[in-house]
């Protein structure tokens, strides 16, 4: 029969004893990647929505919403300053005393100093 010939051709199941080949070293590298380092801290969404609400209440006259605009400005300048600080720290991998959360570059500098 044709069918049996196909059955006979099929691959036999793998035996249990497969020797492990160590192609790469089974060891962690002294590196971490920084893909998910981004933080959402200090966002000014609340201030933006406040200002939009105030503008729509006052017929889009922004001189009536100077308090809200000032708050948003303050928040945005603070956000940009913190962002710049973080970027500088990231690039340099500076270690700050008393810090609990680290960026990936900071962990890299730590691992460079004390390799596993």
């Amino acid at each position, binding site marked *: 029969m044709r069918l049996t010939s196909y059955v006979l051709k099929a691959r036999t199941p793998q035996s249990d004893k497969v020797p492990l080949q160590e192609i790469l070293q089974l060891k962690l590298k002294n590196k971490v990647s920084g893909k998910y380092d981004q933080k959402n801290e200090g966002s000014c969404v609340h201030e*933006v929505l406040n200002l939009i609400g105030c503008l729509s209440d006052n017929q889009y006259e922004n001189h009536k919403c100077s308090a809200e605009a000032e708050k948003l400005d303050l928040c945005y300048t603070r956000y940009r300053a913190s962002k710049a600080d973080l970027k500088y720290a990231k690039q340099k991998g500076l270690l700050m005393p008393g810090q609990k959360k680290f960026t990936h570059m900071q962990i890299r500098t730590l691992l460079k100093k004390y390799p596993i």
Partner: protein
Amino acid sequence: CRSKESIRCYSVFPKHYTKPIFRKEEQDELVTNEKFQAATYLSFKPACIDETSSEFYDPLVSKFINYLIKQGKKSSARYLLERAFLSIKMIQLQAYNSCDSNDKEKIELDPKVILRNAVENAKPVMELTQIKRAGQVYKVPIPIDSRRSRLLAIRWLIQAAKEKTRTDFLYDRLAHELIQAHNNQGRTIKKKQELYKQCQANKSYAHFRW
């Protein structure tokens, strides 16, 4: 300029050269400041040709002239704004002389004050930007810094003047636009309010910025 070894800096002055302090008041203030000792060791660039310690110097006016320039012709841009100031003065004086004595205090006669108020009224407090999320482009309301808002205000004022009917001279149109913006009316203010309306329509996307 990029400070790589292979690329030479374009500017004559290296990066560490700082901007000059050319106003007498600022110099006097610096002498009393603690930073004076450090500033004595700094290298300064020379002042630009329009940066003078003259009484007639106004940073906003010189900025406005710079935005008016076409094909590098600064002298004609300066002439344009000076003629616009003349037109403003004439319009306001006419209004001043024709109105009642009670209303005369309300009419502003100084063209520089009118320009300053016009730019201040035209400044937007927020802006829209385009952000791409999941293959779709959204218009997102974002905060704006003071320099960019001044840029947009001046740009809109000039654009509004240029859009008007071409029967008048540009300086007359600019004068009318500046007076209208000074009174919180006109095309520029309308443009700003339309931007706010769009911000209101797209406020649900505000979190895309962060």
